[in-house]
């Protein structure tokens, strides 16, 4: 069967001479289905086709990837994994432990990925020391987006620490402007929480708490201070924030109804689509004191049979890490390239800022995985922390109760 397909394929292409050579095939499971994201994937599809590959698209939208993960589980259990899957962070290792993930180390060695990628990010792409996934971008999470006009009218500089943020927020509140545009969904609460944690506690505290899950750190006074700041910030959101989608919160900043939003750099796309100029109409600052919380999307390569599929994986891995794709994809998506040697000339102000901060953070060892976006911990542990964060933010739970609940929830999830 396989032979006849190969043969027909070869005949159809009129490549009788190279019939022994494999035709790269890739079935790619992803959930980049919305406008800008779909356009970004199209770039990769076109490059893949231009290099003689056959791309079978398998987009599964819905639930922020939950639906795609369900599809993946069904495919792996039936012994028919897709060639490549949009997968990130520790879930790559989780699937590796289930014995489902393959190996693209020879491509990575040939292309010298170790030199091109920040070490922290390269580690996510490796299973037992060998590359098994390829990164496509770096999203920064700990951004404060601000409306320049609102800030100028209030005489406020864009905040770079949480104290400055609090002072600015009090002033704005006095003027009748909602200081913080926020959507009361668990993942958004977690996004704000981790930005507060890294800004107040510093990189070492963050790493101990949310990467190593150190119980003493989770219960520390520093963690109480983080929850205290969350309680303060609860006073800076409007009454109507529950359940609001993140892009509606961004719209509040765009329209000047609110001054700030704390969100990953996908929020930038909303500003730009509304005709706002980065660095001029809206500000992007980080309150993290040099730390950088990343969320890296990647393609993981699953165990597949057949020469064609393996050739497809190798070609795909090479193209994903290619300079052109990394540039075009990230220009579309609002993130920055994972590969450090891509020219940032065509990127806008906040993109260049993100890249500059990324490089500084690498030098200082302050490059940290985002827990809220599934880069630092596995689903069960990250979910347990988020449960406590969102329960605290949405009730009158005290900081003491919150840290106790945090330690208990983490222990229970292990």
């Amino acid at each position, binding site marked *: 069967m396989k032979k006849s397909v190969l043969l027909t394929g070869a005949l159809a292409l009129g490549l009788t001479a190279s019939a022994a050579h494999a035709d790269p095939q890739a079935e790619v499971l992803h959930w980049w289905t919305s406008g800008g994201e779909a356009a970004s994937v199209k770039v990769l599809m076109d490059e893949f086709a231009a290099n003689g590959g056959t791309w079978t698209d398998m987009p599964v939208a819905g*639930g922020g990837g939950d639906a795609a993960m369900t599809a993946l589980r069904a495919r*792996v259990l039936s012994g028919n994994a897709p060639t490549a899957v949009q997968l990130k962070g520790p*879930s790559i290792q989780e699937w590796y432990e289930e014995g489902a993930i393959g190996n693209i180390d020879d491509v990575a060695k040939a292309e010298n990925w170790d030199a091109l990628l920040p070490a922290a990010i390269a580690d996510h792409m490796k299973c037992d020391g060998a590359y098994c996934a390829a990164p496509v971008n770096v999203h920064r999470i700990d951004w404060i987006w601000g409306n320049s006009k609102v800030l100028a009218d209030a005489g406020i500089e864009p905040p770079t620490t949480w104290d400055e943020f609090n002072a600015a927020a009090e002033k704005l509140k006095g003027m009748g402007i909602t200081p913080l545009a926020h959507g009361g969904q668990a993942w958004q609460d977690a996004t704000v929480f981790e930005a507060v944690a890294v800004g107040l506690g510093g990189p070492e505290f963050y790493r101990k708490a949310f990467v190593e899950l150190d119980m003493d750190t989770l219960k520390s006074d520093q963690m109480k201070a983080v929850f205290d700041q969350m309680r303060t910030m609860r006073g800076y959101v409007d009454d109507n924030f*529950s359940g609001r989608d993140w892009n509606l919160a961004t719209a509040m900043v765009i329209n000047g109804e609110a001054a700030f939003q704390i969100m990953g750099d996908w929020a930038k796309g909303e500003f730009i689509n509304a005709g706002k100029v980065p660095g001029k109409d809206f500000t992007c600052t980080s309150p993290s004191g040099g730390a950088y919380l990343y969320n890296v999307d990647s393609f993981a390569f699953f165990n597949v049979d057949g020469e064609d599929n393996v050739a497809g994986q190798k070609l795909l891995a090479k193209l994903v890490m290619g300079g052109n794709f990394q540039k075009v994809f990230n220009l579309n998506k609002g993130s920055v390239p994972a590969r450090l040697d891509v020219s940032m000339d065509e990127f806008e102000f906040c993109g260049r800022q993100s890249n500059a901060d990324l490089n500084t953070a690498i030098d200082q060892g302050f490059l940290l995985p985002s827990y809220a976006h599934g880069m630092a911990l596995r*689903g069960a542990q990250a979910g347990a922390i988020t449960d406590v964060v969102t*329960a*605290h933010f*949405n009730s009158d739970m005290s900081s003491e109760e919150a840290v106790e609940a945090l330690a208990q929830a983490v222990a229970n999830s292990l």
Partner: protein
Amino acid sequence: MTEWLEKHAPKMVLAPSFIAILVFVYGFIGWTAYVSFTRSKLLPKYDLKGTIQYERLADSPRFEVALTNLAIFGVLFILFATIIGLTLAILLDQKIRTEGPLRTIYLYPMALSFIVTGTAWKWILNPGLGIESVMHDLGWTDFAFNWLVDPNLAIYTVVIAGVWQSSGFVMALFLAGLRSVDNEVIRAAMVDGVSTPRIYMSIIIPSMAPIFLSAFIVLSHLAIKSFDLVIALTGGGPGYATDMPATFMYAMAFSRGDIGQAASSATVMMVIVTAIIVPYLYSELRPRHD
């Protein structure tokens, strides 16, 4: 031959669906119960590890909230849907002229899916868009109705939306029941000069006991499996204040890669359903002596 067919045809016709239900319903219930005794995470595993998942469930504040919410929602939803449904049915039973259209109007919400109901009520109850904002625009600026965004009260908005959706259906059930009460008895009571409320309280309602039971069974299974209404109305929020066992199970299975917790919470839900259904089946299936 014909005789053989006559004897066996019903069994043969029923066999495929019987087998399908045996495997896909009862088989997978068994599978889920089995998995709930393992330490399955991302993918199911089959080494038994005792009751660890149930211990984790017992320690989980979120599951506690989900069970409390199920109790609040279940009791209030069943109670109010029954009371409102019965009241509407009795009012419609007064031989009024426009009964047909009115009945359709009250029954109509049942034609909507819970997703539509949830989304509509999300807008109606949203303080910035719905009732509260309209009242403020009309000049009643002290008016406050922000249950949807209050973690302590949000679960009651789920009750409101659920009751709105289901009470029309309960009304239809009761209306059919009211019509089937023996007219002779009612007439006899009227001749004896018994007042109308008394007729309802002492004769008609007691004779509708089986309808109450049916309404209870239908509503209680709607309450226990309620998922789409919560997702559309509150998304489980604020925080996880409106989480239900079904949404908890979904989060564990599909977002968190914790199949063990999902399976054990699903098993707990099944036990609750069984606790309600078994007495019902028992009362239905026992030989009658009347």
